[in-house]
């Protein structure tokens, strides 16, 4: 394994990498953005020039040394460039989730005390303006898109073009100040503050130093042997650590080219156009892809359907082995090659993954079928386990050792151990400095020797050395019988069914386990259409008896599966109901990264939980909801409660 700290000998900050690339490879593409119908391409030299100008502009606008600057918006060339500009100018970039509502934004802005905000468009600027009085610190807002911004423009709200012009014509004083600030920086200088989405409570600002970032990026590049010139599509939120490491750190260090899609609606088309070499997606992206494949193939002609299923069966048998270069026999290999031409190749092409040499998924457990599906058609999909505090990578799956149940071996430079309570702990040069202005939390998470508690329970397999994650450490509890209660473990099994979008399991300290189920509207809706089931709303579909039958079957199967594991067999579901609304980040029920806020849900739907335990057959309830435009309302429903089969 290469030493990922070697990179620190060459560079001490991430923007130095950019500057180095601009010098050595000025005309190679660095970052593209789909805009005005084509992929507008910046070379390394364009990228650097823009970043320098903006940095100077920021200083001209009064940006102080070491001060945080917020960035909010979709993945945009200018925003990525702004990350470097802020660092160069001695500041600390604080990216914010672009779909955060104003209140969520408020916390980050107040906590970080950012004085300058770089926002993508009117939508984001509006949110900041809405907060108005509550943000006395904010001095300047820069915006990227002029559209509808004409009436906003003032001394404090200015277009980024203006800032760039200021930078291009900056004074001598600014220039020398700029040089000084750049020179002052070391590898220990803070590179970024990333606010975690936080499953509980207010989000915390994770401080990563340049050393953290550089070692993490360098380790990942060597681990997967990424080569210069590879393409990545940057579509995940810029505030998320993964995108930060991939697009802002690994890209310059490995000289990868990043591509920003035109909009969220065009992501799939844009992804297909680019055909990335390196792809990261949370499990739900892959679930979504698989569901759409299955739905579309169902509508295909009989011949195509037969071909598809025939070759998918073959792929299931031998695809994984072919991918790992294991022997499958000459006949199977020939057949697989034919399948590759007729089915797998076109499939990969239609997903935009023809060229993917490394694909990763993380964040949540991925369904084994989904995982195997993508591997079997020749996409090298792997899992990694990580968190913001680690600079993403804790463990990664090396080629040839990929299994869906484990999350791989420690990433370069990472040491791993299991705590007394079963919690996974790690230590690495990439692990974070501290939580910003929150030493209490820092001390809770990171001990004096640098070991960081992940908050996840898991164990290391003896033979392979691979890490296996069971659940959130604090969620793992005991039933009243003393048996182990690991809700996530069961929920994940349920969520592997395409019809189930979310599941929430209750049972800590109780005798039995009960569950809420959220159906997947696209998948169940499609099924309903085929079965000729009429429904007027989500609620009506969710409450349909036939839907209940279907969900009951799924739960029975999961119970069967869970019963096989002695340690966890108490986690079988006794009674369940199908929720009448989708769990929604706008209602605070799940996080923006789609993690269930267990306690919140339990409190909000306490009447339902109670009914699940008191044996009633149905329950009438009323629920508050927040609509997309921010209005609030409430819906009422009568929900059926069913019992599932328990296996002894």
């Amino acid at each position, binding site marked *: 394994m290469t030493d990922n700290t070697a990179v620190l000998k060459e560079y001490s900050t991430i923007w130095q990498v950019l500057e180095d690339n601009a010098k050595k490879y000025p005309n190679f*593409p660095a970052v*593209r953005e789909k805009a005005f*119908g*084509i*992929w*507008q*391409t910046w070379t390394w030299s364009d990228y650097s020039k823009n970043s320098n100008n903006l940095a100077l502009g920021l200083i001209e606008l009064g940006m102080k040394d070491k001060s945080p600057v917020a960035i909010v918006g979709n993945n945009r060339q200018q925003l990525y460039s702004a990350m470097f500009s802020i660092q160069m100018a001695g500041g600390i970039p604080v990216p914010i989730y672009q779909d955060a509502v104003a209140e969520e934004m408020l916390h980050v802005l107040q906590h970080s005390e950012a004085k300058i905000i770089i926002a993508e468009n009117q939508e984001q600027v509006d949110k900041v303006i809405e907060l108005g009085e509550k943000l006395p610190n904010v001095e300047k807002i820069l915006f990227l898109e002029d559209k509808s911004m004409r009436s906003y423009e003032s001394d404090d709200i200015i277009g980024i073009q203006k800032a760039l012009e200021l930078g291009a014509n900056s004074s001598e004083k600014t220039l020398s100040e700029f040089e000084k600030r750049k020179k002052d920086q070391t590898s220990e200088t803070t590179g970024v503050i990333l606010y975690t989405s936080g499953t509980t409570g207010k989000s915390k600002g994770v401080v990563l130093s340049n050393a953290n970032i550089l070692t993490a990026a360098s380790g990942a590049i060597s681990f997967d042997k990424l080569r210069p010139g590879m*393409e990545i599509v940057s579509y995940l939120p810029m505030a998320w650590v993964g995108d930060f490491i991939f697009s802002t750190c690994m890209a310059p260090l490995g000289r990868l080219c990043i591509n920003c899609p035109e909009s969220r609606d065009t992501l799939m088309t844009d992804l*297909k*156009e*680019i*055909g990335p070499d390196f792809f990261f997606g949370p499990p739900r992206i892959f679930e979504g892809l698989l569901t759409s*494949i299955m739905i*579309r*193939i169902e*509508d*295909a*002609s009989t011949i*195509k359907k037969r*071909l*598809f299923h025939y070759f998918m069966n073959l792929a299931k048998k031998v695809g994984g082995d072919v991918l790992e270069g294991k022997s499958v026999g000459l006949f199977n290999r020939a057949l697989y090659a034919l399948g590759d*031409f*007729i*089915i797998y*190749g*076109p*499939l*990969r*092409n*239609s*997903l*935009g*993954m*023809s*060229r993917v040499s490394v694909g990763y998924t993380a964040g949540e457990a991925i369904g084994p079928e989904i995982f195997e599906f993508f591997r079997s058609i020749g996409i090298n999909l792997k899992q990694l386990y990580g968190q913001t505090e680690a600079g993403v990578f804790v463990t990664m799956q090396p080629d040839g050792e990929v299994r869906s149940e484990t999350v791989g071996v420690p990433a370069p430079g990472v040491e791993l151990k299991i705590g007394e309570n079963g919690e996974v702990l790690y230590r690495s040069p990439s692990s974070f400095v501290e939580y910003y202005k929150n030493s209490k939390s820092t001390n809770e998470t990171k001990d004096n020797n640098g070991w960081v508690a992940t908050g996840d329970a898991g164990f290391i397999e003896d033979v392979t050395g691979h890490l296996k994650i069971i659940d959130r450490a604090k969620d793992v509890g005991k039933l009243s019988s003393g048996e182990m209660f690991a809700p996530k473990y069961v929920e994940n099994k349920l969520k592997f069914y395409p019809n189930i979008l979310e599941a929430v399991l209750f049972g800590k300290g109780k005798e039995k386990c009960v569950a809420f189920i959220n159906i997947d509207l696209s998948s169940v809706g499609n099924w309903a259409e085929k079965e000729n089931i009429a429904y007027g709303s989500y609620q009506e579909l969710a409450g349909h008896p036939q839907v209940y039958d279907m969900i009951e079957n799924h739960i029975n199967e999961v119970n069967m599966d869970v019963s096989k594991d002695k340690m966890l067999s108490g986690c079988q579901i006794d009674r369940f109901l199908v929720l009448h609304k989708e769990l929604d980040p706008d209602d605070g029920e799940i996080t923006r990264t789609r993690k269930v806020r267990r306690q919140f849900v339990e409190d909000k739907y306490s009447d339902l939980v109670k009914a699940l335990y008191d044996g009633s057959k149905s329950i009438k309830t009323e629920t508050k909801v927040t609509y997309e435009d921010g209005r609030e309302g409430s819906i009422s429903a009568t929900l059926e409660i069913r019992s599932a089969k328990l296996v002894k």
Partner: protein
Amino acid sequence: MFYREAGDFKTSYQSDQATFTLRLDKILFWGLMAIATFIVPFFVTEYWEKSVFLPFFIYSIAALGLNILTGYCGQVSLGTGGFMAVGAYASFKLMTGIPNLDMFLVIMIAGLVTALVGVLFGLPSLRIKGFYLAVATLASQFFLVWLFNKWEWSYNYSPTGQINAPTRDFLGIDVTGPSTAPWATYLFCLGLLFIFAWITRNLVRGHIGRSWMAIRDMDIAAEIIGVNPLIAKLSAFAVSSFFIGVAGALYFSVWLGAAEPTEAFAIDKSFDVLFMIIIGGLGSILGSMIGAAFIILLPIFFKNVLVGYCGIPTDIAEFTQIIFIGALIIFFLIKEPHGIVAYWRTLKEKLRLWPFPY
């Protein structure tokens, strides 16, 4: 199924608006061109030359021309035969009048002459539309054929009224007259077709082409955008006639070698070319060629299969063929007004989406 588009992205408008935006299409096209240019000439026999390739290339040029007028600009013309006659007689006069003139120039000048005549007969298009215009173009058909029948100067006072193509060359290689080699005429016409298809493509992708299509789709809206209907229609007539004149010149000088107006340029020619673009595809370059191939190959097919293979008498085969073509026209107008090329597009779309239906 064959398309692998992932990674085929465009970073400039130039590549986004290229003729072949898909890598595979580009490879296929140039592959086919390479075969046609470097391999076929070695094997082409006189039969293939005279019965298949020359008629295909020449009618393709004519169909491209008519498609510019009808498919792109929306002006139906039934005067194609007449305009081909202009091209043919112009080339005859040039070949006999200036014996040293290179054949390429002869063809081009013949095209120019036809373009002038076309503009003249296109003038009524400013006042009349639709089938009024279609009928008006019949005037040019009848008048021009009559003219070349009666105007002795046009056929050099030959007692038979027939015109015969003397031997002329293109860059030193004979392409007309009795002693030409099949590969020479084949390559000459192939080259011209390539050039004219390319020109068509260039014209229809720019603002002139768009002004034609605007006139076709909604002439009133075209006018308020700044399109002068006079210029748009007349330019379409001019370009279209140029193409048809070139086709007429090649038809007479390179392919037939001799012609007599009432037979060679009768109204059937006008219909044939019109059918080519209806069946092939209105407003499509590929469609023009597919249509030409179809109408050229159909009689050969009928002759070989019905007469040669099934032993059906020639006249019955001929009648069946007429019925078949007529029925096909009706079929396409009802089922697929965009012609065979629409099926081709659907097929391609299916291949691109394979194995999914959408």
